[in-house]
């Protein structure tokens, strides 16, 4: 492995990775001094430099303050590519295509919900399958239905009674990405996905019950239905096995394509193809289809979360539970941005990063037009999560992107070692967080100390102007795989 690249401090929240060797541009990392120190000993900064080698990159290779060592792009990586000269790279999207989060606001307060919280957690655990290889026997899709999900995303789910039309207005891209080609998704991927719609999976995915603990902009929080004390449902999942297989299938093709188009790569996982090439078009069709599957997956889980609320708190509580927002974390999209004062179409890769469009952006639904796009930042299962709004600063500096989470601090092995003599479930329950999980292994690997304090990450994006804090949520119950 190469020696770690140099870092130059620009200001309190920005660091430059100078352009060296085969880099076509510099790297730009948003972080404070402490977060930069956390990167010592891993390859995340090298990965920022690697991304800067890719053809057609516009502006710097960017990393958010939750940056950590991934594969190909770092987690927390953002890069824009020119429509004519740039590339698309599956390593810039990741295996879990459209991994993302959605937040629901219930009409209940934490005070009235707390006495029946255990029953709610049991109901969620029963209605939303979690864990390794989780599948649903009640929603197994026939081939034609699966292809409709891949084409239409969350819209298919709502049309089939899983949710209400208003949900679609509160989803990035209204829950359906254009350009999806179900025919570009392999039979293997379809086989892996057909019984996984509506399942949370394992690892860092979750369904979490929380409440609004603090607001930083009371008026904006109220507009989003996030008054202090309000009970919330947070869902984190993606395209499950279908998306992993789409990425896997594309890599062999892209390794060949990189050679065919004379693209020199510092890491094979960054394999890519020019945006207009047949290889890129094929991946684009399959990636958007997998992203639509993920939107439908989170929509279906939200439907079952409402059903759990109905079982415990009654129909009125379920019907008045509304979607605050749903955002992608892992995606590549064609977007219009201003580059050097000129409007340009840019292929923006976000891998472990969130779109954060500012007030007034034409792609936002009318109810968000004057506020800016809601941005959902989950933390760990013991501390807190945040709701932010997109800003002009993000639009100018990061292709309208911001952070996506806390970022891991410990490897899974280190976390398990630390957790072994302890009972993390009991510790969390003592803190007021009820845990429902398929195995102890996931709880240990996902223990709160395994993550950075998400407030450090959020405070950096807020101070740097690439996100604006609106509310803090605290967890009271979590379903883990």
């Amino acid at each position, binding site marked *: *492995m190469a020696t770690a690249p140099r870092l130059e401090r620009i200001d309190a929240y920005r660091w430059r990775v100078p352009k060296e060797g085969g880099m076509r541009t510099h790297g730009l990392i948003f972080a404070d001094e402490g977060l930069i120190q956390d990167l010592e*000993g*891993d*390859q*995340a900064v090298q990965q920022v430099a690697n991304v800067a080698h890719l053809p057609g990159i516009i502006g710097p290779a960017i990393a958010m303050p939750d940056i*950590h*060592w*991934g*594969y*190909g792009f770092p*987690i927390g990586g953002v890069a824009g590519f020119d429509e004519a000269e740039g590339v698309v790279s599956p*390593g810039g999207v*990741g*295996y*879990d295509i459209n991994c993302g989060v959605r937040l629901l606001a219930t009409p209940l307060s934490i005070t009235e919900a707390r006495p029946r919280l255990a029953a709610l957690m049991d109901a969620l655990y029963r209605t939303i399958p979690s*864990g*390794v*290889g989780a599948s649903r026997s009640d929603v197994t899709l026939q081939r034609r239905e699966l292809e409709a999900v891949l084409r239409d995303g969350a819209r298919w789910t709502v049309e089939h009674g899983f949710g209400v039309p208003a949900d679609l207005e509160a989803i990035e891209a209204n829950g359906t990405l254009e350009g999806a080609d179900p025919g570009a998704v392999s039979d*293997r991927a379809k*086989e*892996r996905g057909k019984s996984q719609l509506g399942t949370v*999976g*394992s*690892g860092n995915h979750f369904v979490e019950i929380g409440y609004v603990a603090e607001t930083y902009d009371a008026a904006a929080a109220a507009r989003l239905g996030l008054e202090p004390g309000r009970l919330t449902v947070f869902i984190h999942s993606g395209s499950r*096995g279908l998306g*992993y*297989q789409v*990425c*896997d299938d594309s*890599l*062999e093709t892209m*390794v060949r394509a990189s050679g065919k188009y004379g693209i020199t790569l510092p*890491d*094979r*996982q960054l*394999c890519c193809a020019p945006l207009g090439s047949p290889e890129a078009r094929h991946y684009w069709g399959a990636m958007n289809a997998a992203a639509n599957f993920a939107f439908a997956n989170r929509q279906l889980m939200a439907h079952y979360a409402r059903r759990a609320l109905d079982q415990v708190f009654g129909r009125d509580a379920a019907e008045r539970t509304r979607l605050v927002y749903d955002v992608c974390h892992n995606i590549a999209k064609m977007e219009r941005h201003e580059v050097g004062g000129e409007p340009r179409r840019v292929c923006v890769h976000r891998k472990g990063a969130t779109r954060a469009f500012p007030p007034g952006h034409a792609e936002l639904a009318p109810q968000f037009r004057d506020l800016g796009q809601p941005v959902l930042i989950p933390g760990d299962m013991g501390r807190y999560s945040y709701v932010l709004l997109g800003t002009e600063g993000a639009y100018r500096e990061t292709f309208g992107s911001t952070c996506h989470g806390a970022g*891991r*601090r*410990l*490897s*899974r*092995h*280190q976390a398990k070692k630390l957790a072994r003599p302890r009972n993390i479930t009991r510790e969390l329950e003592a803190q007021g967080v009820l845990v429902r999980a398929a*195995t102890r*292994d*996931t709880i240990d*690997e996902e223990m709160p100390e395994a993550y950075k304090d998400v407030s450090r990450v959020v405070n950096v994006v807020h101070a740097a102007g690439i996100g604006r804090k609106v509310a803090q949520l605290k967890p009271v119950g979590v379903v883990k*795989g």
Partner: protein
Amino acid sequence: MPYRFFPHTGDAAVELEASDEPGLRAAGVAALRELLVGDSPVASESERRISPSGHDPAERLIHFLREVLYLYDAERFVPAEASPGGVRGEPFQAGRHRAIREVKAVTYHGVEVRRSEDGTLRASVVFDL
């Protein structure tokens, strides 16, 4: 042991060591089995055929491990060991095997197969978790 996990913040990284390519595949299967089912007993009951393909040893290794992972994920076939024709193992049984975590993929990140002066082959592989 022919494999050793080394610290990786987000995912799982392993270094494999063997005298030849089949040995690397065997070490890779052992590491993947540990990630998937820990120390659960896995019998070499039946074989699934896999023909490793790729232009170099690294590509062949990754291709082989991806196929093993696909068999586990799509068919619930738990790998026990690499065999000359592919991989041997048995169907997943809830009481016998402990599904520890989801392995999303075998990545190409930083993969290379190196031969040291004493002839040993070494490869590092990152699994996406």
